[in-house]
């Protein structure tokens, strides 16, 4: 269950996998950089519900074939340059969505349901371009059209969390969204700041914020594994670093420069 390195964990993910990534406070940056290093390709990314730095990095590194998303940006640091560029030149397939539709698709998968109905979307061009979303008559109000979203079933949920125990239980605290990712995905791989000998589910204070190991296929320690993004109560976002990325990544050359500077070294103990 507990892997030696996050590179080992990254290698568990085959090319072509569908991957769910939560939007913030838990973005597995170290794991993502290790995936890039492992030479992974053809990923189908599902952003939950939006994406940022990691999604842009994976796209810029040529690892991605499609993105299902409600939006990708670097937040206050501006647009996501590699995402924007990939859309313009058609190098990735975009499945535009809206936040609650991504949640609903995952919730359908969580329940093992084939679909989830949802209000909204009708009359939008998002719907026009999503042939996989169906319109039906609301069976309880037949004059109403309602949208049915197909279940979204990722092969892997990946995220970074503060703490795991030896059994593979993961403490996520208030990030209850990660529970949905784990339930909806066939497998869940997690990097953590540290591993405790305590059983997280046995502590009544920690249990409400703990995802049981049953859903978890692998764990690796990656100290600072969400940097330069934040992990609440551990470290804040490094806004300067993200802004620097936003500027550099406007060109492919700049992007390569950033990647080279930030790539994972085998012998970098802090990011193993």
């Amino acid at each position, binding site marked *: 269950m507990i892997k030696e390195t996050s590179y080992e964990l990254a290698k568990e993910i085959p090319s072509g996998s569908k991957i769910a990534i939560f939007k913030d406070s838990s973005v597995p940056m170290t794991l993502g950089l290790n995936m890039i290093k492992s030479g992974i390709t053809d990923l189908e990314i599902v952003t939950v519900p939006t994406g940022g730095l990691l999604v842009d990095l994976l796209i810029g590194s040529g690892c991605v074939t499609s993105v299902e998303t409600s939006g990708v*940006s670097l937040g206050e640091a501006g*647009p996501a340059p590699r995402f924007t560029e990939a*859309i313009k030149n*058609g190098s990735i397939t975009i499945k535009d969505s*809206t*936040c609650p539709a991504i949640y609903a698709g995952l919730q359908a998968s969580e329940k093992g349901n084939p679909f989830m109905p949802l209000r909204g979307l009708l*009359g*939008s061009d998002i719907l026009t371009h999503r042939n996989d979303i169906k319109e039906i008559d609301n069976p309880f109000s037949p*004059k109403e*059209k309602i949208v049915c979203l197909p279940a979204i079933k990722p092969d892997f949920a990946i995220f970074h969390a503060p703490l795991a125990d030896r059994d593979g239980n993961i403490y996520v605290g208030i990030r209850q969204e990660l529970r949905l990712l784990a339930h909806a995905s066939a497998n869940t791989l997690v990097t953590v700041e540290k591993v405790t000998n305590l059983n997280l589910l046995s502590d009544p204070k920690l249990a409400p914020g703990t995802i049981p190991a049953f859903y978890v296929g692998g764990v690796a320690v990656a100290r600072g594994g969400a940097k330069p993004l934040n992990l609440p109560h551990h470290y804040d976002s490094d806004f300067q670093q993200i802004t620097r990325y936003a500027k550099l990544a406007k060109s492919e050359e700049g992007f390569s420069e950033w990647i080279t500077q930030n790539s994972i070294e085998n012998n970098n103990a802090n990011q193993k």
Partner: protein
Amino acid sequence: MRFNSQEFLIHAIAKLIQPSNTIAVGVLSPIPGSAALLSQQLSKQRKKKVFILGSNNPKFKTSHGVEIFDLAGQGRIDTFFLSGGQIDGFANVNLTGIGPYPKQHTRWSGAFGSAYLYFLIPQVILFREKHNREVLVESVDFISAPGSSSENTYRTGGPSHLVTNLCVFDFNREEKQFFLRSIHPKHSLEEVLDNTGFNFSYSPNPAITTNPSEAVLNTLRTEVSEEISEIYPEFAKNTWP
């Protein structure tokens, strides 16, 4: 008392949302966020609830990312804000991009929650500071979220106003058209007409948007600036240096 343009716009928006009990604010929305907080401060006895996406303050955050959408679906949110790369005269919003889809030559982030929340929150205020014919167009290139819907669509929400750096529009849902509610001081009807790409109705002598009072400015510069600076430190620094 002097004030800056952010303070003016915060106050203009706060006036529009005064009746509302529960206000939600999306990401990257410092001016609507400040307006929500101002409105909360100005009606303390009413215990107004404000949700601010992206805030880590338990006072303003939800317990789960899906909760704001669920709350909207349940009808528990009165007011929300949207912006747009393009906004047209039917209040259609484009947050996606320009050019033949999907390989759009101008691509923005994406629709975020707009294609849902616009349908379900009774008062959605469109806010875009930049008032020009590139933004306020006759017809958007891509409808991320439609301003109105046909009868067979469940829709309890939609556009109520559009606020820009020049004026405030009301949106008339029956006529599917904007009506010029007021022009900000120092701006003219001509300027609004020249810079708006869509048709709208107006009276020959439009009202002038009210300036914030001294009391309002005091509240803004104390309670509101303190609260919003937790979420938007850069914005707070620039607005209240």
